[in-house]
């Protein structure tokens, strides 16, 4: 049953560009991007319980590294690779000091890093061009971007699925539930957390590279901005953190709500959007997918896989 549903959805998404609907196509690219950010955030946030409010830093570092290197004449694929690697290296470097912190301290220190990155890219204008932003070679890349981001979304979902079935995933969940006890039972806690962060960062870094390539122009607030940082996390929590399908549903839900509000209301759409986030946080602490009817339906079709 779940295979049939997934197959149909995937097939539809694969042939979608044939219909030649640029507006929806662009919308789907943005959607894929948010799904990817939310889902990759959740590899660390949902499975190990470390709420990484600095996740967007990996995206931004990927975006800037790609743009700067590609502009120097490096080949496209090597630039994509470099963007990903830069995010991974950053993740490894910050994981040692950051993982000494717990709970809200961890989240806030990670968030401070994003703000630091934003200010640094603004001020190191001899390299990054500051608030003027970074431009790369122009070109219409809607269709290739559509497929690349779809591919990346499929990849992150598959990786999440493999994680939930592995002993690595089990160890991640034990860290989330009782970190000290996991350590007493031989779980290499520090290594598990760093690995989770590296996987999470590599997807965000690659997506960041794609993003620069697609939009042609980026500036610090586009990739490190506060709302940009908080939205994917809100999506993951809203949909259901720690459930594979959760961040996907959260991203779809929130983006559709936002799009509807933007087109229906001339004013106050941000307020309405905030209200939706508030209500979900208040009444569905486990996220949309853990609501009883939703959960029952997802279990029946075999799409409720949690860790």
């Amino acid at each position: 049953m779940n295979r049939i549903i997934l197959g149909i959805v995937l097939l539809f998404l694969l042939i979608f560009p044939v219909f030649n609907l640029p507006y929806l196509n662009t919308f789907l690219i943005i959607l894929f991007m948010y799904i990817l950010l939310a889902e990759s955030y959740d590899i660390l946030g949902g499975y190990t319980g470390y709420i990484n409010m600095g996740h967007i830093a990996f995206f931004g570092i990927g975006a800037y590294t790609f743009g700067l290197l590609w502009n120097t004449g490096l080949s496209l694929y090597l630039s994509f690779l470099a963007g990903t690697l830069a995010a991974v290296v950053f993740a490894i470097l910050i994981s040692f000091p950051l993982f000494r912190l717990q709970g809200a301290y961890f989240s806030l220190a990670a968030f401070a890093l994003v703000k630091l990155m934003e200010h640094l890219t603004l001020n190191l204008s001899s390299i990054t061009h500051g608030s003027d932003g970074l431009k790369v070679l122009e070109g219409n890349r809607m269709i290739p971007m559509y497929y690349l981001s779809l591919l990346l979304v499929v990849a992150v979902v598959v990786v999440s699925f493999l994680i939930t079935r592995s002993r690595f995933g089990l160890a991640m969940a034990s860290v989330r539930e009782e970190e000290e006890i996991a350590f007493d039972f031989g779980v290499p806690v520090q290594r598990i957390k760093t690995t989770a962060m590296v996987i999470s960062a590599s997807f965000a870094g690659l997506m960041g590279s794609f993003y620069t390539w697609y939009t042609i122009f980026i500036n610090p607030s586009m990739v490190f901005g506060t709302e940009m940082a908080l939205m994917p996390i809100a999506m993951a929590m809203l949909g259901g953190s720690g459930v594979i399908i959760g961040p996907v549903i959260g991203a779809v839900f929130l983006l559709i709500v936002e799009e509807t509000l933007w087109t229906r209301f001339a004013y106050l759409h941000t307020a309405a959007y905030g209200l939706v986030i508030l209500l979900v946080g208040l009444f569905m602490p486990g996220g949309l997918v853990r609501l009883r009817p939703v959960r029952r339906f997802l279990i029946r079709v075999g799409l409720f896989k949690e860790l």
Partner: protein
Amino acid sequence: MEIAIQLVIAGILQGGLYALAAFGLSLIFGVSNVLNLAHGEFLMLGGLFCFLIFSATGLNPFLIGLMILPFAFFLGYIFDRFLMRPLAGKKEHIRLMSSILVTLGAALCIGDVTSFLAGAEEKGVDYSMPSFFWGDLYISYLRLLAMVMIAGLTVGIHYYLKKTYTGRALRATTQNIRGAMLVGVDTSRIRSVTFGIGSMLASIAGVFYVVLLSISPDMGLTVTIKYLCIIVLGGLGSLIGSLVGGVILGLTESIVSYYNPHWGQTAAFLILVLILLIRPKGLFGK
């Protein structure tokens, strides 16, 4: 030399202002263990109402600030009663998650409604006081007054927490919630009262903002993040921690900005991250 002193004074004033708002947030974090991303909105609202009443009546803005205090308290109290209390008693990382969603939602909502009703532009109260020279130093009465008031408030809060029943119950709840419950503290009520106090401190800071600097409806999240950083820097629930954290940030900003205005904020965040690398629980954390 005069410039150095001038910069230090400006930095301390700025830092004291930060500390005032940050301490409210720190209290809330200590007592309820939630991240209140809407704290900056209370600050903005405090400044906004001061601006509106000042524009209509021309009263002394600090007097207006005093008048709106009960409303700020009430607002914080009901915010906790209806939005935060339902989350109490959940597992820690679930509560952290829900508190992020609820307060982020509230912050977006308050910011947008305000900018719809009151306009999105920056607002400042045009209230000035004479300045004087002390030796070679140029000193503004307004800033001096602000500094004295902030110092007074800090001492006041310190004694409130040490001497009154509510203050002591509040500190007990921060240290050990079960223990506090066992000795008969109504911890739910203490949480709401703390939110009220936090909101009051934010609104006082808002008044200083609107008089000395300016406010705008979309400033909330930005200043909240800064205050969150300060309390992490100082260590949670510590009044002295917030004060030192705030002053470190304020001084860094004012001194670095003098040499290069763009790098002030960057240097502040850099120092924050460096301190956290060395002392993960903050300067005064245990």
